[in-house]
């Protein structure tokens, strides 16, 4: 087995020509290969645009659902800490 155990891969799609621009879709994958199984997490990461003038633009693809979910849990956690500290202060 020549593959490493954990690998981050960035892959690019073949270019799509639209309106004179070259558009390349980029994805980022985490690969974990174990002797008894494996795990792959692949997500879209960016869109690379090359104009006819030669300008390159990178537009990131953000997972809004995951960001919002993380924010909700972080707020809940921070609130829990705040309530605990406030309750301790009141008892003393």
């Amino acid at each position, binding site marked *: 087995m020549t593959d490493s155990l954990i690998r981050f*891969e960035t*892959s*690019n*799609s073949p270019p*799509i020509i*639209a*309106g004179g*621009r070259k*558009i390349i*879709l*980029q*994805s980022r*994958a985490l*690969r974990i*290969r174990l002797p*008894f*199984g*494996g*795990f*792959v*997490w*692949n*997500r*879209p990461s960016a*869109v690379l*645009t090359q104009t006819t003038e030669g300008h390159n*633009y990178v*537009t*990131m*693809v*953000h*997972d*809004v*659902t995951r960001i*919002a*979910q993380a924010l*909700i*849990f972080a*707020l*809940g956690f921070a*609130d*829990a800490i705040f*309530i*605990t500290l406030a*309750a301790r202060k009141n*008892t003393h």
Partner: protein
Amino acid sequence: MSSQVVLNSDPQPDELSNQSDALNTIQNTFDKLFGAAQVESVYGDPIKQDDTIVIPAAEIVAVMGFGIGSGKGKGEASSGGGGGGGGSVRSRPVAAIVIAPNRVRIKPIVDVTKLALAALTTAGFMIGMVARMNSKRAPRYE
């Protein structure tokens, strides 16, 4: 791509043949699993509408696990082996890439159900925590 299979003329024990079949199956399943790491599996086929092209983008999580084993009993003839495995592939839409004639836009896809569940879980945790703290502080009349 073509592959050629060369069979050995010497007879092989059934056990070895079964093991090799199992290993081949595992290797094929591994190859299919790691195929999910390619860029084609994340982006869908472009949909063209007039001058605009829309490309759906999704997140993919693939998990696989297996186990094989064999053993011998007390007698010479009593031996056996077996194996099993399982896996899952989950896909969730993340965004739609809209390629208009003048610009490229990324429209995020928000999973409202997932966010509502996260909010409810957090709210439940908070309410439970406050209720527990109040019950500890409340005086007991016995």
